[in-house]
């Protein structure tokens, strides 16, 4: 099994304008997703939901501290899962079920840092 990060990129305005019912449904969808990962033969190694980019602080070059995300984009990184999957096809099968109502997800393999992957 290989670890993949599923990075959720969403347009924050989708969440800003979301009704309480829609928010509850989204939380349910994520909880369903975590079960589906196992149902599909994968497993979950971690993950987190992130506060909006309006709360972000960037530190550039080890010294310059600025308000806001590192890169301003329409779709911002809003959370991630760390899943274990057989291969990229399997990881994508899982990623397709990941809720991302304001955008989509990016699948990235996680590397063993003892070898430089670049």
């Amino acid at each position, binding site marked *: 099994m*290989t670890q993949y990060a599923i990075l959720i990129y969403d347009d924050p305005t989708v969440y800003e304008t979301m009704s309480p019912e829609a928010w509850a449904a989204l939380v349910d969808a994520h909880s369903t997703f975590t079960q589906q990962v196992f149902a599909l033969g994968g497993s979950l190694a971690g993950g987190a939901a992130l506060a909006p980019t309006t709360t972000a602080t960037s530190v550039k070059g080890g010294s310059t501290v600025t308000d806001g995300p590192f890169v301003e984009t329409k779709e911002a990184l809003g959370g991630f899962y760390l899943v274990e999957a*057989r*291969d*990229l*096809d399997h990881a*994508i099968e899982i990623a397709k079920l990941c809720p991302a109502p304001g955008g989509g997800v990016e*699948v*990235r*393999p996680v*590397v*063993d840092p*003892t*070898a430089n*992957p670049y």
Partner: protein
Amino acid sequence: MITPSDEPTASAPRADAVAAALAQAHRSEWAFVLSATVRVAGDLDLAEECAQEAYVSALQAWNRDGIPHRPGAWLTTAARNRALDRVRRDGTFRRKLPLLVEAVTVDANDSTDPDRPDAAVPDDRLRLVFTCCHPTLAPEARVALTLRLVCGVPTSDIARAFLVSEPTMAARITRAKKKISAARIPYRMPDRAELPERLDSALTVVHLLFSTGHTAGDGDALVREELCDAALHLARTLAELLPERAETRGLLGLLLLTDARRATRTDEHGRLLLLADQDRTRWDQRAILEGLTVTAGALASGPPGRFTLQAAIAGVHAIAPSVEATDWPRVVHLYDLLLDVWNTPVVALNRAAAVAFADGPAAALPLLDELATDPRLVDYPYLHATRGDLLRRLGDNAGATRSYRQAMELTANAAERAFLEQRLAEVGSAAGTENGRSPEPTVRDFF
């Protein structure tokens, strides 16, 4: 060391016979050798290296011991033995690398018997094709990888065919291989549910290879021939290995029927010749017959897909004695069916061109006007070229001139520019005359 199992056929063969056998083995067996070696190597780069070394070692061994009965089996054994050596030697190191193949079979009892290629190989070659054409790779990377790994075409030739520098092409191939390895793109057959989509991706790559080779003009003519041959070989292989998927035969039929016109695509100056101007007596009748047979088989296998329908259209052209005597209503009907399964503006444009022949240019002009509003066609030279043709046939030389000029601005292909210049000269000189209508119609064949 390598101990290929095959007995030599004769001792001390002539060097040129060995070189010819090796060249033949490279053309026809490269994919077989490489794909069987990937299983042992568990890694594309290592497998490619070992396969190349096997071909190099064959030159010396065959000169010394004679050409083996089954060159492909000899080369596979040699390549796999090298890969086994390397995997054992670098065992500790390699274990850290992500392996491409699940449960790599690094033992002599591997289920793939290199001495029985017919029984064992098909799956491996398909695995290789499906890996190279994986939808998570960029389309241009799929094409380059397929040429490099499945067809064994040197990177320098691929670079020339796609008009990029060799370092650029090499970087593109390296990047794709790295993704296959690091992201673990699996080396396996797609399952039943995935197969239609994955096959479509593979067939699209083969079709693109062929089209790149077939489009006359820029680039090296020999390299382009090589691309067409490689694409035909691949289409044949896919049709043999997956005969139950009608679209594999549809693609083969399409390539055969298009390739039948290879000799007449350009004139002696390399200028593009349209269907109307091609000498139909020089079309390859054997390729046409085979193409029609293969296409008929695909059409009889259920609802036709996009390649089968394009083959059927190419078939109507192939049997027509002239442009005028072409069954245009049937062509339009086939385009209608094609639009149902593959609704793209380019197909709609081709349909409009067919309507111009079936019902006259006046009937097709409104269709083109509608298509001209599609943002995907704004930069498409054929839209303007087709429009120019319709206007020319309607006697509107000024309008035709404008459209041909627009098309000229959008094409970089030398042969196509030369053709458009010729058309421009025609409408220019006809503008002053009483009857500006040129009698002979123009057909773009887009395949």
